[in-house]
């Protein structure tokens, strides 16, 4: 087979997803007779895509080290509840800070168990997923937190999800900022090189002096912060949050990362691909809504996509690395 083609696939694992997104978008536009590409619908897709993408970026960084973070759904819930619960009392600035601190702490907790104690990340973060979902339910116990009118007037509230710029929710701008910053860190800095190295071969990285523990701990903190921030962005957009906030988001975040070309075995990720992965999932969701399909079917579609994407990932990796 063609060597240059293999090089292309290896260096740009997101290529397939981006091509698929373009094809699907065209199909959706045609099937919905333009409804899917209407300004209003695209604005709505951009907000949900941005929130999901920010979580998925954090997930991708964890996946880069060969681990996984299933807790992001409930971390975003805790972020949202902390933000909306505190904002009316202390203002949205301090509430934002508190939400971010929650993300750091939960990320650090995951990091301690996975990086320091060496427990399997799948189990640890499954545990913290339920743990913080439980705390979210307990804290709200049937109530929901809502943004008051005065909070909605605050600049920070609008800057972290409450407001729009040129008709587009600010979440989209945040997603692009996070994308650029992480892209630079992962692919252009020594820390990024070590993150990828740890995912590629932890023992070899360690033998070259890389602190595997610090790297893994670090990526969980980043993932926690981004999940909490995504929760804040979504909460400020919606204006209220209850105990179920963020539920099943972890699935979509993992799916977006895998769709985007992040290899679950670690060491190979694409953040741009992850953005397109998030867009694809949210685009499909929106398409199903426009077709008036029951929302439950979305989960089925996500599950199907993840399984197919994993298969494609393996096939492509094998193809790309064949000598």
């Amino acid at each position: 087979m063609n060597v240059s083609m293999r090089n292309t696939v290896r260096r740009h694992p997101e290529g397939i997803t981006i091509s698929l997104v373009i094809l699907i978008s065209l199909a959706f536009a045609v099937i919905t007779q333009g409804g899917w590409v209407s300004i209003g619908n695209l604005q709505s897709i951009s907000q949900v895509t941005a929130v999901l993408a920010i979580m998925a970026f954090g997930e991708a960084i964890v996946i880069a080290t060969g681990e996984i973070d299933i807790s992001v759904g409930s971390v975003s819930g805790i972020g949202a509840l902390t933000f909306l619960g505190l904002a009316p009392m202390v203002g949205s600035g301090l509430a934002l800070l508190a939400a971010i601190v929650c993300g750091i702490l939960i990320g650090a907790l995951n990091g301690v168990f996975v990086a320091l104690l060496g427990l399997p990340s799948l189990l640890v973060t499954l545990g913290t997923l339920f743990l913080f979902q439980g705390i979210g339910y307990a804290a709200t116990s049937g109530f929901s937190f809502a943004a008051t009118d005065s909070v909605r007037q605050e600049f920070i509230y609008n800057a972290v999800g409450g407001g729009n710029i040129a008709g587009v929710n600010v979440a989209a701008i945040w997603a692009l900022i996070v994308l650029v910053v992480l892209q630079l860190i992962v692919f252009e800095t020594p820390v990024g090189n070590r993150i990828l190295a740890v995912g590629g071969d932890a023992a070899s990285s360690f033998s070259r002096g890389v602190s595997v523990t610090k790297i893994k701990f670090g990526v969980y903190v980043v993932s926690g912060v981004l999940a909490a921030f995504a929760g804040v962005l979504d909460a400020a957009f919606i204006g209220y949050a209850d105990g179920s906030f963020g539920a099943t988001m972890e699935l979509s975040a993992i799916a977006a990362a895998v769709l985007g070309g992040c290899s679950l075995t670690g060491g190979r990720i694409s953040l741009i691909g992850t953005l397109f992965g998030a867009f694809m999932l949210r685009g499909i969701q929106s398409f199903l809504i426009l077709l008036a399909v029951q929302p439950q079917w979305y989960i089925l579609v996500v599950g199907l996509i993840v399984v197919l994407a994993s298969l494609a990932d393996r096939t492509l990796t094998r193809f790309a690395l064949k000598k």
Partner: protein
Amino acid sequence: MAKTDGAGDSRKPLISIRNVSLSYGNFRALTDVSVDFYQGELVGLVGDNGAGKTTLIRIISGINPPTSGEVYFDGERITKFHPKKAMDLGLECIQQTIGICDNLSVGRNYFLGREPVKRVFGLPFLDKKKIRETSAKVVHEFGLRDTVDVDDEIALLSGGEKQTFKIARAVTFRNRVIIMDEPTNHLSVRERAHVNELAVQLKQQGLLVIYITHDIFQIHRIADRIVIMENGRKVTDVPRDAMSAEALEGIIRDGGRASAKGPKVA
């Protein structure tokens, strides 16, 4: 702790292993090993599979701390075991099974753990130009194909090429100590000869070279001293001239049970 000079040698050892043991759970990989290594010396570390050679090297290169015993580097006791620390002290190790991340490019592997940076607005970014140019120069000097692009993932190299890469990296970053764990694995006959020449050259440049191998005949030709391990213990430690390769092979074959011929059985 006052340390006496070992075995009548008046020089100060560069690396001194004192009564080191290492257990993984119930398994004793090393039992009470004491051995000194000197600057400018090529030491052959020989023994059968599972003798503890690699385990000893993992301690020296900071991967595993010993369960008990002491390790001195240049007279200073090592208390914190980490590969980074060993690299900072000037020790490069060519590990047998690890040392390369398949998912990274040749250049990124070359500089892994000591990436060159250029500051942009005070932030540390990888100096990709330096990574590319330096690593390309080194690997091609060491005989990798011209078609090897250092931006390619290292997984695309063959086993022999990867081994050559590891040797090139260790030799170029050389400082005071080079440890080679079965360095001639995957290599052709000609490449083997080259690696052995290289080991001698490095020694002549004043480095300590610890060379691990199964092949007593091969190492006997080039080493200054032979250390034989068996079952996690040091069983023989002799200058090359003190014993023939055949006699040393006899010791290994007998499972370290010292034959009467062994002059300096520990």
